[in-house]
């Protein structure tokens, strides 16, 4: 793979050299505009950085709730029979864990939070294309989340269908599915509007000298993601609306007694929900692509292939949905076609992994927290990706379908992948947003604890799945006990790692050492601004893109991280 030639210019011409490297950072976009209350200036803001932070805080709050529910599930499963909750509670808890984590945490996590904070800065824009629509998306997100919370405490009890809302059970259960699917519809609408906003922003608001091949790969990842959000989410919208209509109006479109077909529901659901896993993972891959070259002090290996592989994942990923349905009674031809297509998606994902590793090769590596989290990502995502092929192969899938193998695979990919991508992003852009640094050593320790905890938590699930333990079961045979105990202990270690990471970041933003505009010595545009950046970003003057996004010639790391 040939390296992309990037323009080279002397360091002195970038605005970075003019800003002081030490001292207390000024307030930047944190400063409340004159004549407005602090709270009002946040709740009515159209500043993309503030909206991104609003998302981030809400997402982290829901993440904490989701983690707590996950810990309760693991605690219940530490021994056969009843441990801490009854069966119906257990069904509600795993449904909630799924709905909260998927729709309120993972899908908006990187695109809505860091996409908003970072993307306009990376392309040299003043804001997104539709700032008010951006704020409206956040309110839709809050509304959807509020309705989801309401669904727990009203009607016939918290939904117990699992996050997939499969018919016929979801059409007949007496629990509060009506309200929950409305919440999902609204959250989906919020996601569509964010995606739409990003596509137009990236097309229209790049700085004049920012060509498509000069764009940072995080922005490329967001671009591919935005198309999936726009093209796939409406199908989820209509699917959950039909569940609603099925329950409220008695439509019967999925009811065999009235001529309907439940399998059609599964098709419609996965037409969205499979591409949705790429909404979750592609932005995280973008974060990793931005982080690794900075800490290897080396241009990214295969810029164009990484950029195009994001689009290839977006395209191929929308053609593989029925691999969730190999045992649902599809024709053998359909099973074979979808199995083949599933294997094809592995190619662009592998291209990225190989390119990251090649970037590290012969790099001058700094083991700072963003890189440690990125390495964690590569390791855990590869574990999840390889087991994904076991599930994508039609023959092997029949053996492990609906077992703990699926649960293990999914969590390796989403927690180990998207979760670690989010943590890498949090540690990478933290100094940009707050103008301060956290304790690097503690952050690294937390990352290592998390990698150990995650493996202990989810690797036993592969073994449980291979031995035949079905997913979602409340009770199990005694022979599965040992592995369940290991997994539950792993969940405690993971929780400890999360707590340490959160505490360290919190301490950093209160008491961390102040840093200059570019502590890591990165080359993308956001690092040419002061930390934290001013409200108007680059101001009225369009920034000049004088170097490639990963051209580090002449850029030094700041002393604060040295």
């Amino acid at each position, binding site marked *: 793979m040939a390296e992309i030639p990037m323009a080279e210019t002397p360091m002195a011409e970038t605005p970075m050299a003019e800003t002081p490297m030490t001292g207390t950072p000024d307030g930047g976009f944190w400063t409340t505009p004159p004549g407005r209350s602090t709270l009002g200036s946040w709740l009515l803001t159209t500043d993309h950085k503030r909206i991104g932070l609003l998302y981030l805080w809400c997402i982290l709050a829901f993440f904490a709730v989701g983690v707590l529910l996950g810990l309760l599930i693991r605690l219940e499963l530490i021994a056969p029979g009843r441990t801490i909750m009854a069966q119906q509670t257990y069904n509600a808890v795993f449904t909630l864990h799924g709905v909260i984590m998927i729709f309120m945490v993972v899908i908006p996590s990187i695109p809505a939070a860091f996409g908003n904070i970072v993307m306009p800065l990376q392309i040299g824009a003043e804001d997104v294309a539709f700032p008010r629509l951006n704020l409206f998306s956040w309110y839709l997100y809050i509304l959807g989340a509020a309705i989801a919370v309401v669904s727990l405490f009203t009607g016939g009890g918290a939904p117990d269908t699992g996050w997939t809302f499969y018919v016929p059970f979801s059409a007949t259960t007496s629990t509060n599915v009506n309200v929950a699917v409305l919440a999902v519809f609204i959250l989906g609408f919020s996601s569509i509007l964010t995606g739409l906003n990003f596509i137009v922003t990236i097309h229209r608001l790049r700085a004049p000298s920012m060509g498509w091949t000069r764009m940072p790969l995080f922005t490329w990842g967001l671009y591919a993601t935005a198309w999936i959000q726009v093209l796939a989410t*409406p199908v989820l919208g209509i699917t959950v609306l039909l569940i609603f209509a099925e329950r409220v109006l008695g*439509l019967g479109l999925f009811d065999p007694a009235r*001529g309907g*077909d439940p399998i059609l529901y599964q*098709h419609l659901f996965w037409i969205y929900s499979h591409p949705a896993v790429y909404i979750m993972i592609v932005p995280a891959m973008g974060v990793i692509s931005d982080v690794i070259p900075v800490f290897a002090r080396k241009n990214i290996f295969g810029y164009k292939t990484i950029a195009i592989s994001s689009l290839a994942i977006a395209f191929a990923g929308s053609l593989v949905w029925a691999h969730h349905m190999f045992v649902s009674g599809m024709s053998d031809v359909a099973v074979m076609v979808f199995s083949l297509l599933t294997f094809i998606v592995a190619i662009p994902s592998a291209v990225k992994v190989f390119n990251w590793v090649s970037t590290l090769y012969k790099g001058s590596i700094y083991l700072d927290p963003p890189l440690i989290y990125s390495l964690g990502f590569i390791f855990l995502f590869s574990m999840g990706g390889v087991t994904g092929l076991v599930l994508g192969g039609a023959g092997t899938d029949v053996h492990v379908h609906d077992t703990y193998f699926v649960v293990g695979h999914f969590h390796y990919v989403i927690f180990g992948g998207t979760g670690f991508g989010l943590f890498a992003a949090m540690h990478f852009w933290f100094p940009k947003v707050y103008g301060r640094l956290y304790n690097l050593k503690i952050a690294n320790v937390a990352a290592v604890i998390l990698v150990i905890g995650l493996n202990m938590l989810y690797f036993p699930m592969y073994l449980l799945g291979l031995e035949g333990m079905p997913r979602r079961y409340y009770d199990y045979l005694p022979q599965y006990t040992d592995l369940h105990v290991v997994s539950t202990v792993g969940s405690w270690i993971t929780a400890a790692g999360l707590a340490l990471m959160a505490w360290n970041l919190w301490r950093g933003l209160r008491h961390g050492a102040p840093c200059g505009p570019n502590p890591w010595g990165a080359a993308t545009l956001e690092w040419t601004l002061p930390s934290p950046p001013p409200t108007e970003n680059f101001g009225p003057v369009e920034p000049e893109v004088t170097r490639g996004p990963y051209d580090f010639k002449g850029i030094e790391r700041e002393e604060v991280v040295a």
Partner: protein
Amino acid sequence: MTIHRDYTGSKMGMWIFLFTEILLFGGLFVIYAAYHHRYPEEFHHASKALDTAMGTVNTVVLITSSLFVAMAVAALRRAEDARARLLVVLTIAFAGVFLVIKYFEWTAKFHHGIYPGSAELAATHAPGEIVFYSLYFAMTGLHAVHVIVGMGLLGFILARMRAGAVNSTDFVFLENGGLYWHLVDLIWIYLFPLFYLIA
């Protein structure tokens, strides 16, 4: 923040939004295709019960309203403000006529016991016919919701035109509203043959 005005960006955003609308209906069209393939005879019989005359009138009404909104955009660009506002009012009025006709069609069906979840429907019709009527109500119902949303949107644009905020130099809001209305029209042009003309 400076006021950011980007005509191309606004149009691009609207077109992407229209894509999402097509995909929203796309889910229902997929279901229609699957069930039509499974129950061709039943769809044929059930379709006979629909009133083709009313459907035809409604098609003409909706296409005419679409013409009005296109003319309104042209008039506004020529700075004929009063004429543009009149044409938007006519668009909304014709949308209202469409809904009234739809109302009579639906109530007639209800009187014959044809509505989702009806025990009479389940007792007297084959499963394929029940599916046809469920789809009929789901798709025309969702379409009617879009008609109502479109009327609200055009009403809001009309107020902005009165206030002078949408004018001959900044007309993209009306143009986007018109695009939305054409989409509502277009979806009906597909619904009409799929339900009324397949018999």
